[in-house]
């Protein structure tokens, strides 16, 4: 049974290995958990899940897997005394509602429908723990007729309405959440690590002393590669218009990038890059930097990060004169490919949720222009972007 649970967890995308499974079995054998299901849940979670971002997945997998067992314990419909239910209905329901229950085929039918609906809803498990309650249309949404109460309530049974793993407290720890400055810095730090490689040699005092000592006092010089922070980043940020809702996360990305990279140059654009960009929002019309100048100035080992929602009319990318702010002689796509050719290592970070990309044509075009290296602005997306930049 637990083997199947193990595979259920793996299917749910939790990285469990045999080591963890054996640990759990060992703990069970050592009687760490007493008989209760809650104990087992906590023990299994401590042994199998090593990152709070997977807690929610674990909760769902646990609920799905032990669904049958819970039902055997609590009984769904079958083991609830029908008389008790009838009394409850008499007490809780108005005459009108009782008439509707009759109309649905009486209590037995109602319970059956309830069971079906419960299973169905649990299978999909969308949004929170209110499985039933879709406003006025569902017969299970009425006051007092709490289906969860029916399911596990019974009389003298387990009284808790919602079980721990069904509360889904850890929902927003899943790694698709938007991120804060700290998270971004941690993600960007991964880029810093590889920046410490180099060929130059410098004198290593510590190692020289210790190897001289080991060498019975005879001088033994040691050298190490110089630690130079070679990573250089060009950041292009989309501002204004449709980016307004994403200002905060872009701000955070920007401030994190500023503190992480010593060699950071940043430029702003509106919707798409054309022949010029700017550095100071207040003087964006007076002081613009020609894109050609950027192409000439920065060596190709700069990493380029575009940040923008890429949501616009496709003309703004594909057509000369497509820009909504000025007349551009050459299409944005041309400028984009010049940049991506000069700087081979480039990514596009998109604050729009990844599952909505396919509905916007311009996002698809932008993705092609950056060779599919577009990533969502989430912890996970940033990780993938950094990996793409390192490659």
């Amino acid at each position, binding site marked *: 049974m637990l083997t199947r649970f193990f595979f259920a967890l793996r299917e749910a995308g939790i*990285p469990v*290995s045999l*080591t*963890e499974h054996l*640990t759990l079995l*060992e*703990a069970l054998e*050592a009687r*760490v*958990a007493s008989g209760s299901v*809650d*104990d087992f849940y*906590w*023990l299994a*979670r*401590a*042994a199998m*899940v*090593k*990152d*709070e971002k997977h*807690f929610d997945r674990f909760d769902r997998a646990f609920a799905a897997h032990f669904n049958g067992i819970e039902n055997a314990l609590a009984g769904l419909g079958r083991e609830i005394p029908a008389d008790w239910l009838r009394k409850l209905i008499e007490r809780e329901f108005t005459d009108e509602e009782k008439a509707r229950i009759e109309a649905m085929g009486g209590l037995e039918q109602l319970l059956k429908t309830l069971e079906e609906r419960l299973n169905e809803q649990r299978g999909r498990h969308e949004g929170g723990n209110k499985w039933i309650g879709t406003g006025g249309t569902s017969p299970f949404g009425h006051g007092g007729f709490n289906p969860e109460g029916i399911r596990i309530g019974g009389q003298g049974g387990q009284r808790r309405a919602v079980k*721990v793993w069904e509360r889904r*407290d*850890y929902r927003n720890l899943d790694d698709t959440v938007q991120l804060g400055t*700290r998270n971004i810095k*941690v993600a960007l*730090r991964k880029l810093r*690590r590889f920046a410490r490689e180099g060929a130059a040699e410098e004198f290593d005092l510590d190692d020289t*002393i*210790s190897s*001289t*000592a*080991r060498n*019975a*006092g005879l001088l033994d010089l040691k050298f190490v590669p110089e630690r130079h922070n070679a990573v250089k980043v060009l950041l292009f940020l989309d501002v204004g218009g449709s980016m307004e809702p994403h200002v*905060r996360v872009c701000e955070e990305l920007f401030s994190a990038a500023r503190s992480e990279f010593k060699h950071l140059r940043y430029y702003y654009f509106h919707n798409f890059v054309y022949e010029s960009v700017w550095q100071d929002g207040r003087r964006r019309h007076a002081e613009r930097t020609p894109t050609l100048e950027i192409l000439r100035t920065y060596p190709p080992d700069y990493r380029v990060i575009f940040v923008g929602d890429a949501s616009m009319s496709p003309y703004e990318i594909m057509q000369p004169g497509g820009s909504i702010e000025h007349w551009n002689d050459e299409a944005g796509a041309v400028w984009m490919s010049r940049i991506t050719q000069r700087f081979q290592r480039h990514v596009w970070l998109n604050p729009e949720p990844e599952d909505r990309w396919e509905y916007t044509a311009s996002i698809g075009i932008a993705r092609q222009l950056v060779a599919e290296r577009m990533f969502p602005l989430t912890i996970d997306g940033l990780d993938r972007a950094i990996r793409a930049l390192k490659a």
Partner: protein
Amino acid sequence: MNRRFEGTERYVATDDLMMAVNAAVTLARPLLVKGEPGTGKTQLAEEVAAALGKPLHRWHIKSTTKAQHGLYEYDAVSRLRDSQLGEEKVHDIRNYIVKGRLWQAFESDEQSVLLIDEIDKADIEFPNDLLLELDRMEFYVHETREFIKARQRPIVVITSNNEKELPDAFLRRCFFHFIRFPDPDTMMRIVAVHYPELKRELLSEALNAFYRLRDVPGLKKKPSTSELLDWLKLLLAEDVPPEALRTDDPRKSLPPLYGALLKNEQDVHLFEQLIFLQRRQQSRS
């Protein structure tokens, strides 16, 4: 059989935390604890040691800490100096081996608790360098060709603030617990443990104000348990009446002594703006 950990007079442990600690103690595996800052991660190790009556070894990790520092260090410079001064002890390398925390914990006669605090501060490779040592609880001293093996497997508690991800191989060997921010009921118990003489009225008003503050969207640093406790201490010291904490009073903008809760001037500013907006709405209606 070890005694079970069930919290102490000073530390309220939730059921899931107890389960994680007891599993780690029983199977002698390391316990990795994560959670928001200020939820008592470091304190957990101290309380586990106190509750089980075992000595505690603390190893605080910094960004420059190397795994080797926990095992032992070979003090080559002293030996170099001693050799030049012609000291007698220079002939025995043992005199220059400085024992680290891990060695001390391995060596102690009774089982001890070893706290590895803020493991994420160290270099990314740090946890990997400790894999074998924490798994087998043994290591080899090259200088003296000695083999050190733990007499009693220590109870290892590792805390992390999530600044760096830990390697999978390392995680696989640990039990994991994430300290959630306490719900209001647990918070009541925690506060009761720290300030038993606190008036109920003041406490419930303070908790209301506290959770309201935590719910303000957009705060850069949410106040945590340790900040709440500090704030309560101040409230007690200043003898603030419970009525003063009700923020529906339109004349008061921030809760008294808010400096203990909000530690960032942007947050204070944001909060003031929100209060201002709220007041304007009230005066309009």
